[in-house]
């Protein structure tokens, strides 16, 4: 009996935050369904959510790693655009899009590594330093692109287009890739040395260091992973819309961060949940689109986004204080 109790309490300790976020998602669905059933059974509403979700997943899931490591990054919203710019510019100049894709992702990883190194080596506040990088990189893009967008219709005829963002019998391929990414990240975070080290480092970096974990290297790798995720998100969106535009990604800054925290990952480090984050993304995406779908004006959107974030935080509070 008591063994059973300990099993349950351990299970709750490990999965409570993810379950909480699933609960909010279900609750939100029920509210929408009751509030506007006729809008809710129309498939095109869910289709537009599914167009938005993959991008948000590529941004949000790597942030779970970084937040669990005890850091934060805001610059990802600009990294997103820099990688997309590199991709679009190279495609426009006749480089094979598959190579452009790889180079774009490398750009994201390199920016992540630089931001991470800057923060870790000089012991800067990741919140403030990455805010600086956010503006700096956005400035660089605006200057380089002369604030002009780049259209890449030619991508349509290349094999990577149907493979990555095409339609497979009505099913958008980016959802498939996002699902693969989520499964990979689930194992990477929970069952891989990197993910476990991320949690140790975020929990107590002094202990981790004493046990021989290279704390700085773990943190820099987490920043790199955020850079890679942003690059994938940026490039996918650019391909879907056939257009790079210089302000792209900015709108995702707060949404992706909100999804991390609504998803149940606490801000203080050491803990994180990939499954929770997926449902966090679901909540944010449905809020964005659902409010309009049920016939309310767009002005309500931000209000409800804020409300959801606060309610979610209060709910996750049930999992208790941080243990030390």
């Amino acid at each position, binding site marked *: 009996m*008591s*063994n059973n*109790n*300990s*099993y349950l*309490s*351990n299970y709750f*300790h*490990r999965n409570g935050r993810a379950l909480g976020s699933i609960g909010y998602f279900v609750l939100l669905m029920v509210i929408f369904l009751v509030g506007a059933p006729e809008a809710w059974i129309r498939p095109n509403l869910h289709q537009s959510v599914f167009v938005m979700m993959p991008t948000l997943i590529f941004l949000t899931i790597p942030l779970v790693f970084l937040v669990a490591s005890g850091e934060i990054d805001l610059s990802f919203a600009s990294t997103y655009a820099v990688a997309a710019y590199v991709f679009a510019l190279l495609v426009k100049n006749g480089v094979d899009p598959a190579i452009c894709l790889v180079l774009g992702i490398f750009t994201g990883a390199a920016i992540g590594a630089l931001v991470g190194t800057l923060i870790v080596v000089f012991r800067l506040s990741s919140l403030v330093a990455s805010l600086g990088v956010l503006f700096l990189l956005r400035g660089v893009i605006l200057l380089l692109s002369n604030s002009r967008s780049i259209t890449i219709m030619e991508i349509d005829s290349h094999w990577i287009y149907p493979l990555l963002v095409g339609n497979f019998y009505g099913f958008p391929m980016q959802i498939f890739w996002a699902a693969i990414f989520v499964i990979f990240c689930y*194992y990477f975070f929970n*069952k*891989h*040395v*990197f993910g*476990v*080290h991320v*949690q*140790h480092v975020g*929990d*107590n970096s*002094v*202990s*981790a*260091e*004493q*046990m*021989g*974990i*290279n704390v700085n290297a773990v943190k820099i790798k987490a920043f790199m992973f955020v850079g890679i995720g942003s690059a994938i998100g940026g490039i996918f969106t650019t391909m879907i819309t056939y257009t790079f535009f210089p302000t792209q990604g900015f709108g995702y800054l707060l949404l992706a961060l909100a999804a991390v925290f609504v998803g149940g990952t606490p801000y203080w480090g*050491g*803990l994180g949940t990939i499954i929770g984050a997926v449902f966090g993304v679901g909540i944010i995406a449905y809020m964005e689109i659902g409010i309009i779908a049920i016939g309310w004006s767009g002005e309500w959107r931000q209000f409800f986004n804020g409300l959801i974030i606060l309610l979610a935080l209060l709910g996750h509070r049930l999992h208790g204080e*941080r*243990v*030390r």
Partner: protein
Amino acid sequence: MENIIELDNVTKRFGGITALNKASLKVTRGEVVGLIGDNGAGKSTLIKTLVGVYSPDEGDILIRGKKVNAWNALKARESGIETVFQDRALTPQQSIVKNIFMGKELRYPFGFIKEKEQIFEANRLIREIGFTSKLINAESPVGNLSGGERQGVAIARAIYNKAELIVLDEPTNNLSLNETQKVFDFVLNVKKSNRSVLFIGHNIYHVYDISDRFVILDRGEVVHKLNKNDISTPEELMKIMRDTIGAH
């Protein structure tokens, strides 16, 4: 007797402060060395240098007679040195099993973790060190444990890794009598298996009881070394300590 580790004239500075001044210390196989000294004597700095958390500014570190370069915590652990730090070096939000294997996870290729094997070993270890509560198993978070139990997890880590030298930094602080006895039993077991312990403590009586040899540290310097058979009572050790400290 083989030297497991030797510190040769090691100096460590923090800014303008010399925390460790030409300190030398060795631990040979199968002995228990007690390191004593007042607060601020440099015990912690000496330990952290010995186990690779700090790198020395001057002097050499020798493992089994061979000089090592770029000494760090990972190298120390790979050389068979495990440390039970004063703060236990635990991550409280993580499970017992994750803490026991922290930094030395059992791995499949590509860095994936052998979770089942780790949980099995961790459950065996926590029974071995005498966790009796049925509410605790390998997957319980460390944050729910008492001070003595946390100490147990830190010791389990050292047991699992079959260290040749186990460094215990103030291991009896904040422990009940019963728990203190468990730590002593553990030290004696390690010694019996021909492995070594470096025991750091405030409590002279604890250190006296358990150690074969004593090293007295004061203001970053090793000021006295003596064997247990040089003295007959802990009071004598206390007197020697009082006389040497501040006298040099």
